[in-house]
């Protein structure tokens, strides 16, 4: 059984078919990348998995069960965490508080015990903090723990967002362009982290990324999309050399098939 399975998924916005009959499986323990030009439907697929969009046709299974009857806020407790392409952090809160929100699905207190702040809530807070500290250590966020998001540089925000998703302790991590806007060094850090997320934490990763160096460095399998359709699926090398993929990126009259689809 695959961890995540999309079966003939189609989504239309009015007359536009954003995702057209797409099927793929993400196996447990792999890093799976979605690539494709802008408007190919990559982020739309993410938004369907996190249930912000509902597909018109097809079904999405997580651990063998359909998730289409779930609300967006149920998805993290199933074990699916995500980041956003353009960073959606809680601006007026500290890094620590942002990461603690990631522990929301693990809370066992309710608002009444919170208001009274019973010893149970206090112990819970300690436990959540410890879980968050592991993430902080993992991503080297110690210098920023108390800083407000509103004052942080872009690169750090990217990392905090990844940390917030990791704080959920998901089984499947959806990374929407983890390296966009990052420097070469920062991108290399991201590559190491994705490796560690897979190997050390045992979390399956599904990511959308344009940086083909990063994609070929970390992913086990790649799927290329264009105009909402699947073009090719397989190892990074195979997909990069696929004629349909090269055509989608460079047009049909490209000079030479060097396979550098970036």
């Amino acid at each position: 059984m695959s961890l995540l399975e999309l079966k003939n998924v189609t989504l239309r916005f009015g007359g536009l078919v954003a995702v057209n009959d797409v099927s793929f499986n993400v196996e447990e323990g792999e890093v799976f990348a979605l690539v494709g030009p802008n408007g190919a439907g990559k982020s739309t697929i993410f938004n369907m998995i996190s249930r912000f969009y509902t597909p018109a046709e097809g079904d999405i299974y997580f651990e063998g069960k359909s998730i289409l009857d779930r609300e967006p806020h149920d998805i993290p407790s199933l074990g699916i965490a995500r980041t956003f392409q353009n960073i959606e952090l809680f601006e007026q809160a500290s890094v620590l508080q942002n990461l603690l929100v990631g522990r929301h699905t693990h809370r066992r207190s309710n608002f009444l015990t919170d208001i009274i702040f019973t010893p149970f809530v206090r112990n819970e807070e300690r436990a959540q903090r410890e879980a968050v500290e592991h993430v902080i250590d993992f991503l080297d966020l110690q210098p920023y723990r108390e800083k407000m998001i509103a004052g942080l540089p872009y690169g750090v925000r990217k990392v905090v967002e990844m940390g917030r998703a990791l704080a959920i302790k998901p089984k499947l991590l959806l990374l929407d362009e983890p390296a966009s806007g990052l420097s070469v060094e920062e991108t290399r850090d991201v590559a190491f982290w994705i490796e560690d997320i897979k190997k050390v934490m045992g979390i399956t990763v599904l990511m959308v990324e344009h940086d083909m160096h990063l994609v070929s460095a970390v992913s086990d399998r790649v799927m290329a999309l264009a105009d909402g359709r699947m073009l090719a699926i397989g190892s990074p090398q195979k997909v990069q050399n696929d004629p349909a993929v090269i055509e989608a990126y460079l047009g049909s009259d490209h000079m030479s098939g060097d396979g550098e689809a970036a």
Partner: protein
Amino acid sequence: MRIVFKTSYDADIRLFKHNAQAFWYLLLFAIAILLPFIVSEFLIGEATLVLIWAICGMGLMILVGQTGQASLGHAAFMAVGAYSNVIYQENFSLPFVISFPLSGLTAGVAGALVALPTTRLHGIYLAIATLAISVLTEDLIVILEPITGGITGLFAPDVQIFGFTFNRYGNPVELYWLVLGITFIVVYAYRNILRSPIGRAFAAVRDSEVSAKAMGVNVARTKMVAFAVSCTITGLGGALMGHFATVFTHETFNLIISITLLLMIVVGGLGSIHGAFFGAIVVVLLPLLISVSRDAIGAYTGSGSITIPGLESGIFGALLIGFILFEPMGIYGRWLKIRTYFELFPFYRKDMFRRQKSYLKTERTQ
């Protein structure tokens, strides 16, 4: 500059960051307790009013400052608190110790019911919907004459707790202490909200609903809880206001009060407990200041007492515009800046509190 060394996670959980901070707040509380021995009875009455406004303000602050939901109708929930408190006492002959918390609960339930349809709305639409509720409540009070007394209003009996009597005119000092005690409890509850998961869920909803959902926060439910908690606190404040006013009608809790509440927390400083108190001080002391200076000017020019209609709301409006233009963080924001200036002296930079321009946000998916 103070450096706090944190040696355990509890350092971030406990109420005070360091002992000096605890000392100053305890000193403030001690002065508040001893205030009746320092100032006149008239000023104690004013101080009681400040505390009652601050309680109502904290209620609204939970909603506006913490959860980012606008409400232009919070006087309605003050009214629910005030009316239900007196009705429980008079019609069901419940003692104050039961009717008072029950009135807060009633306002909280009313808030949750209002939240059911209105939390689907955002920004200006939510403001309009809550404004309508304020207007509607005024009319409802008049229509429900048999229990609310209609336009003649209700008479709030003296507060009786275990044989002790609290009356604004008879024993204002005792009433002040009672209100101070309730204020203390509300502040403590507010602080608990800020340091617990529910407070973080509020902040998540305020800063990014999309992201809150992606973190597993049930946005609709969180907004409802925010409304319920907010209206409970405001309802408690309203109940106290009823006892303080002794006689109240539908006009005691009209739209102007709703707007004043909102202006109060904006001027005081959105998103902080301090803001509610600073705002309450401005709301209570401004009319006092105006009347004092009016008399002084009248005596100076020899023209006797001059009355300019609408002067109070005019000055209040001008204050608000001034704050929004020059100090959007309110009085508390200004206070933070001044404190930082001295803490870091001479290293304070002019742009230290300038907000960074936020980066492009994801297109809203819903």
